């Protein structure tokens, strides 16, 4: 079934991420409404600024806009805007309760508990709207920001921009949260602060207009080989957009009336602080005895890092590149091709063309794998981060054909990721600085998709037969009575590479929650109707 989406109706940053158009900077604004009428006027005034999912060079009269703007609401926000009670009652529980109230499901305890969050999140129910700006440069980002702040004056205080975001040097009352792609050696990267390449294998769904090549390794697995086009199908649109068919052959549960939810979605926003110092330190200590005794510390550390994540720092997947040498070769080829294509000046057209093709080939290789040949986790450990958050067909274990489709347990648990890192982490021993990830996940059901992955696959291991073992990178590792960290993970042996079964213990919590909530992203139609106050489910 070929799906055509009305891209002008869907808000931007869903069908494709702004990252691919080169918007490496972001700003996140939180608002509170004190009055329904003026707040709705504010929304209506914002509508012309809101970016849709149409290709960016088609929205702004031929050139991509200098800054994009998108809006999402919490349950409290929609209530304040005067949405009728009948509509509000039709929203799912997860959205209604909000992220803070569901901390026990998410494992936001200890250092991740709400009492430790940025002040802006702590007042009960006061976050109503999230406004996201993505910009190509600091000036353009700031320009859009000033424009919006200017519009607030017309609301006579009935719409408040909330302060209380933490910033560097102990500041904790900023009026917005910043995000930025990490720049290394003058070049923007796709890295996050532990220096892994992030954002690979974003799901591909019908209607995005992705090619078969782009679907390899990103859609849902079929029974065909994973390194072929036939090995992957695009996921159903309804897993990510309300009002469209989902993987279980129906429309996903959605709020009423249909015009309110159609082409909309739900979004999870989480500010995740990263303890860079603890991570650097742990990798150093934990890798000391890994693998062959004559491996250099660099090899050992890089390998342990890869084993935790399921991918090497450069993004090469362990499933295809199980050893250091082949992963470095991958990285070298990538860097060479990228340099030829983007940075070198005296390069011929043919060379550029070849480099482009090479980069495309490597991009596919990064995604085109499954775990069928790695049931024991010798290449990619059974508990590695990417294996947990996207098991592909591996939940059939060694019983190929046990399920209707290889991805039967996975296809309904995918999320789109649209966030950016924040802060800088040049001091690799620092834990307390402001640096981490603004994690944004988009899905049509928060409890079925994001929360399930977080609760069952990140902070638990039963589906992988790993009992209560947690994801090494993201898990909410606990401490004992004396405050010593007690996180544990087993790295499965690889006999070919002389890597015996490796036990890592004393893992501290590397990632801590610092704030966030659950949001509803309305379509452009719904947004207009919310601004006009005409939503009526009767």
């Amino acid at each position, binding site marked *: 079934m070929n799906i055509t989406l009305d891209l002008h109706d869907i808000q931007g940053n869903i069908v494709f991420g702004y990252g691919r158009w080169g918007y490496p900077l972001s700003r996140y604004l939180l608002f509170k409404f004190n009055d329904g009428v003026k707040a709705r006027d504010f929304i209506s005034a914002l509508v012309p600024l809101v970016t849709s999912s149409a290709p960016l060079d088609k929205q702004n009269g031929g050139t991509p806009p200098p800054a994009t703007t998108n809006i999402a609401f919490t349950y409290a926000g929609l209530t304040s805007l005067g949405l009728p009670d009948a509509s509000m009652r039709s929203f799912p529980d997860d959205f209604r309760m909000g992220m803070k109230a569901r901390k026990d499901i998410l494992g936001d305890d200890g250092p991740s508990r709400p009492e430790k969050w940025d002040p802006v999140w702590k007042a009960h129910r006061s976050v109503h709207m999230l406004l996201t700006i993505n910009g190509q440069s600091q000036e353009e980002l700031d320009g859009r920001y000033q424009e919006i702040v200017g519009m607030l004056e017309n609301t006579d205080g009935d719409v408040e921009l909330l302060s209380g975001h933490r910033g560097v040097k102990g500041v904790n009352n900023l009026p917005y949260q910043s995000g930025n792609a990490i720049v290394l050696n003058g070049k923007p990267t796709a890295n996050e602060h532990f220096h892994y390449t992030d954002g690979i294998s974003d799901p591909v769904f019908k209607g995005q207009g992705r090619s078969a090549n782009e679907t390899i390794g990103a859609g849902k697995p079929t029974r065909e080989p994973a390194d072929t086009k036939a090995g992957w199908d695009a996921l159903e649109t309804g897993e990510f957009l309300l009002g469209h068919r989902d993987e279980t052959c129906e429309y996903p549960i959605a709020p009423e009336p249909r015009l309110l939810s159609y082409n909309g979605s739900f979004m999870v926003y989480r500010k995740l602080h990263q303890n860079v110092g603890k991570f650097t330190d742990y990798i150093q200590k934990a890798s000391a005895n890994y693998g062959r005794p004559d491996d250099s510390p660099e090899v050992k550390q890089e390998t342990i890092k890869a084993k935790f994540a399921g991918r090497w720092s450069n993004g090469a997947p362990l499933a295809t590149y199980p050893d250091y040498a082949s992963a470095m070769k991958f990285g070298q080829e990538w860097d060479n091709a990228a340099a030829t294509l983007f940075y070198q000046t005296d390069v011929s057209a043919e060379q550029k063309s070849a480099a482009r093709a090479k980069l495309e080939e490597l991009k596919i290789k990064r995604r085109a794998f499954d775990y069928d040949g790695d049931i024991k986790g010798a290449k990619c450990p059974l508990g590695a981060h990417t294996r947990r958050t996207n098991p592909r067909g591996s939940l059939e274990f060694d019983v190929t054909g046990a399920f209707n489709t290889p991805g039967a347990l996975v296809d309904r648990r995918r999320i789109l990721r649209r966030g950016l890192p924040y802060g800088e982490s040049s001091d690799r021993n620092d834990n307390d600085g402001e640096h981490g990830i603004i994690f944004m996940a988009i899905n049509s059901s928060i409890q079925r998709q994001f929360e399930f992955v977080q609760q069952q696959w990140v902070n638990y291991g039963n589906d992988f037969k790993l009992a209560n073992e947690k994801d090494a990178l993201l898990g909410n590792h606990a401490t004992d009575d004396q405050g010593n960290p007690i996180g*544990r993970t087993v790295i499965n042996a690889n006999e070919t590479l002389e890597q*015996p079964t490796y036990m890592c213990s004393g893992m501290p919590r590397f990632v801590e929650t610092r704030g966030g909530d659950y949001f509803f992203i309305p379509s452009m139609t719904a947004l207009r109707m919310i601004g006009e106050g005409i939503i009526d489910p009767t």
Partner: protein
Amino acid sequence: MGNRFGNAYGLTVLIPIKHGTEDNRSYDKIIRDKLQQWPLDEQSPLSKVPNTYLSRVFLLNDVFYEGAPAIEEHLKNKYLVFSSNFFGELDDYLTGMWNTIGDLLKEFLQHCVVFDKVNSSADFVRYIKRCQIKTSLFFNGSTDKPLDEQLKALYVKQAFIHFAYLSDHFRYEGERGAIKLQDAFKRFVNLIDIKNFNVPSWPVATQSIPADIELSVKAIINNVKEADK
């Protein structure tokens, strides 16, 4: 045949409840109220019944009307439903049940049809068999070992994992390390007494992790380190 899967037995029992009231409440409501007061987990009466894996009790009030064009019909009696998964033979299980919580059952089931005639384990076994619904399909997704063996295995696994982590560094200390590892393991073998399914073992029906498992393994490793000095 349908009731078993290996040595595991799936018992389904529907016990009819007498019509009548006491203190203005019907017998079935009284039974349900009592049932919901039963303490849980290790305090549950069912924890005393040997070899019970997982078991549940509920009141079957009536069948459900599915809506047109289905026929509407109703049960003339209310039933107490008892479902149990256990190890072993039915007769042994029911006899064990009577011997351990027979008094409680006499009181609890006093308002069930002709239960007042049940006065011995033999009576009880016969009674329950008359109330039994034959299982059409029993799926065992777990094991069919005796309960004490299952619990012992849980204990052994938890203890061994602690051992593996706590002794891990010995693996990388050359000859000295190998000796310590072997020494530690010998002590570990004594600690867990793997063939003894009674003790030490995993406490039945506990909702928490017994802290002494890790502590006892830690003590072993510490002793080995001390001895090495």
